[in-house]
C-alpha cells in the first residue's frame, strides 16, 4: 500500500538532559527519516524541554517515527499535532536593502504583514516577522526584489489548541 507523503508537526516533551537532542537527531539520521525543522527550548519547568519537530513521511513512516521517538528513554511524550487543531508559529529576521526609494514600500509591507523593523542601518533594515510558514514565505518573496542580504528563521513551534467550550 502506498500512502501519500504528508508533513507532520510533532511536539515532543523530553527530559532536559545532555544528549537528548543528539539521541533524537541520531534516530532520524540513522534510520533515514526526514527533519524539515526543529526547535528546542525549556518549558515552564526547567527539567523538561519541548521539541517541535516538522517531518515528512507517509503514514507508515510517521507511525515508525513516533514509536521510535517514544522508545527513547528520555522522551516523555510524543504529540502529533497534524490532525487536530493547533496553533503554529514561525519567525524570521530579514535583512533587506533599504534604498531611499524603497523605504516607504518596505514599511508599508511591514505594516500589512504586522511585522516590525527591529534594526535600522544606513543601508539595511532588519524586519522581524512572526506567523505561519506561508506568511513568512510571502513576505520574503515580496522583499526579494529589493535585495535581501540575509535571513535567519526559526523552525516551527506549535501547541495544540484548547477547547472553546467547556465540556460538561
Amino acid at each position, binding site marked *: 500500500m502506498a500512502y501519500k507523503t504528508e508533513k507532520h508537526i510533532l511536539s515532543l516533551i523530553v*527530559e532536559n538532559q545532555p544528549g537528548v537532542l543528539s539521541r533524537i537527531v541520531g534516530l532520524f539520521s540513522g534510520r533515514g527519516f526526514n527533519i524539515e525543522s526543529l526547535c528546542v527550548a525549556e518549558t515552564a519547568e526547567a527539567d523538561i524541554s519541548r521539541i517541535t519537530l516538522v517531518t515528512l513521511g507517509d503514514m507508515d513512516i510517521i507511525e515508525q517515527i513516533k514509536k521510535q521517538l517514544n*522508545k527513547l528513554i528520555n522522551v516523555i511524550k510524543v504529540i502529533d499535532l497534524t490532525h487536530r487543531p493547533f496553533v503554529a508559529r514561525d519567525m524570521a529576521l530579514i535583512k533587506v536593502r533599504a534604498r531611499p526609494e524603497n523605504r516607504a514600500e518596505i514599511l508599508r509591507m511591514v505594516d500589512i504583514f504586522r511585522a516590525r523593523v527591529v534594526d535600522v542601518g544606513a543601508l539595511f533594515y532588519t524586519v522581524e516577522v512572526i506567523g505561519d510558514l506561508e506568511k513568512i514565505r510571502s513576505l520574503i518573496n515580496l522583499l526579494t526584489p529589493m535585495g535581501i542580504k540575509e535571513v535567519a528563521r526559526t523552525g516551527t513551534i506549535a501547541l495544540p489548541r484548547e477547547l472553546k467550550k467547556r465540556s460538561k
Partner: protein
Amino acid sequence: MHQSGVDIFLRSLMEEGVDTIFGYPGAAIVDIHHQLIQAPIRHILVRHEQGAVHAADGYARASGGVGVCLVTSGPGATNTVSGIASAYADSIPIVVFTGQVPTALIGNDAFQEVDIVGITRPCTKHNYLVTRIEDLARVIKEAFHLAASGRPGPVLVDLPKNLMQSTAPHTSAAAVDIKSYQPTYHPNVKQLHKVVELIQKAQKPLILAGGGIILSKASQALNRLAHIINAPVTATLMGLGAFPADSPRWLGMIGMHGTYRANMASAACDLMIAVGVRFDDRVTGKIEGFAPHAKIVHIDIDPTSIRKNVPVTVPVVGDCRVTLNRLNRLLQEAGLFWSPDSRESWMAEIETWKQTHQMRYEQADVIKPQYVVEKLHALTDGEAVVTTEVGQNQMWAAQYYHFNQPNCFITSGGLGCMGFGLPAAIGAQLARPDRVVVDIAGDGSIQMNIQEMATAVQYDLPIKVIILNNQYLGMVRQWQELFYHKCYACTKMEHTPDFLKLAEAYGAMGLRATRPEEVVPVLKEGLSIPRTVIMEFMVEPEEKVYPMVPAGAPITEMLLV
C-alpha cells in the same frame, strides 16, 4: 557515613545480585579493580574487551539474567562496540561499565578519552555518563532495570575516574522511577479477543516463535498455545529452543536457511501468530511474497517492531509470556480446543513438504560438517549449551542440533558477529557449570577472538570448541559460488595456524579428525576430557548450506540439495 564512588559501585552491584563480571583493567577503571578483588564478586579477566562483552552476552543468555562488563576508557571502551552492537541486535540484557577520564579533562582530548556515550548511542538501549557522585547509585539501578525490563538490551554506564575516588554520603537508591519508560507487559484484552476470533476462523494456522519467547521465558506458554490450537510451530534463528524440536508440531527454522516445510508453510498459512519476532529480512525474504495468504497476529513488547516490516492484522503489544498465558486462558474459558488429529488436510500438506524435501546432505568420503553436528547432538543427548561463530558453521548448528530447550542456543543472530562463539561459550559455561558447553566454530571466525582460549584455560572451563575447518570463509564462498561465478575472491584461508598446536600453546587440549570414521572417536574423546578442548574437523571445503533463499527472493524460492 561517607562512601567512595568505588564503594557505591560495588555495593550497587551486590544489590543487583551480580556475582560475575567480565572485565579488563586500565588506568581509568583500576580504582574499581583495586577493590573488586576483595568483594564477593568474581572477576573474569578476558583477553580482549570484545570478548568481555560477548562473554557477558553468553552469560546472560545461558543464565536468563543480566551480564556485566567492566573495562577502561578509550581503547577499552571502543573495543566493546561490536559486542554491544551484537547484544543490541539480539536484545540481550547486559550492562557495560566503562572508565572515563576525570570530569575536568572531558572534552580536552585527554589521554585515552573517547566519547563512548556518543559512539554507542545508536547501539545501546540507553547509556549514561555519570558526572555527579550523587547520581551514581541511581544510575546503576536504572541501568540494570533498563537492561532487563521491557525489550531487554545493552546499557552502558561511563564512569569518570575522579568519581570513583571522590566520596559522598551513603544513600540507598530509591526504586527506579522513569516516567518516560513504562513498558507494556499486559496486553489489551480486546486485541486478544480478536486473536481468538481469527484462530476460530483459521484453517491453516502457523505459529512463528522468536527470541522474545526465550527472553520472556514464555516457552511453556507457547507450548500450551500450540497444544490448544493444534498449530505447527516454526521459529527464527533467535527462537530456536523456544519450542521443542522433538515435537511432532515442530517444522524447523524459517527463513533464508530454513527448512522447506517451514518456508512453504509460512507461504500457505491463513493465520500466522508471530510472537517475539521482528521480521528481519533474513526471516521474511522478499516482503511482498511473505505469508501472502495470512492474517498476521504480531505479539511483541516493543511497539516499534510491530508494523515496521510487515503489515499486521492484529497487533498486540505485551510481554510474550504474559500475553500467551492470557490468550491461552481466553481460549480455555471459551472451551476452545483442537485435538491433535484436527486440521487434517493442513497437517497432510505439511507432511508432504516434509517428505519431498527433508533436511539432508550427501554422505561422502570426506567429513561432512552436518554429520559432525549430528553426531555431536547424539553424543551430548541434545543437552549441550551450544554457542556458534558466524557463517556456515552457525547455520549447520541451527539446522542439525535439534534444540529442545530455551537458553541453549546462543548465537549472534542480528549482527552476525564473527568471534562471538568462544567468549560467549566462556560466559555460558560460567553461568551453567553443570552443562556441556560447545562452541561450533568456523576456521575463520574462531581466529577473531582466539585469544579467549587463555581465559578459558585460566578459569578451568571445560568448553569444547568444534572447528568445522573448510579452509574458507565458507558462507561468503557459498555466495561467490552461487552468485558470483565461482570467483572465490579473498575467501580462501591460505594460511591457518595449526589449531592443535595452538590449543596446546594455550594449555588446552587439541584433537583433529580428517576422515569420517574419526569423527565419533574424536568427539567422544573431546567430550570426555574435563578441560578446554579444541576439536578440529577437516570438512568438505565446498559444502553448502541448504536450503538457501537468495537474498531478496521470496522465501519459497529455495535452492535445495
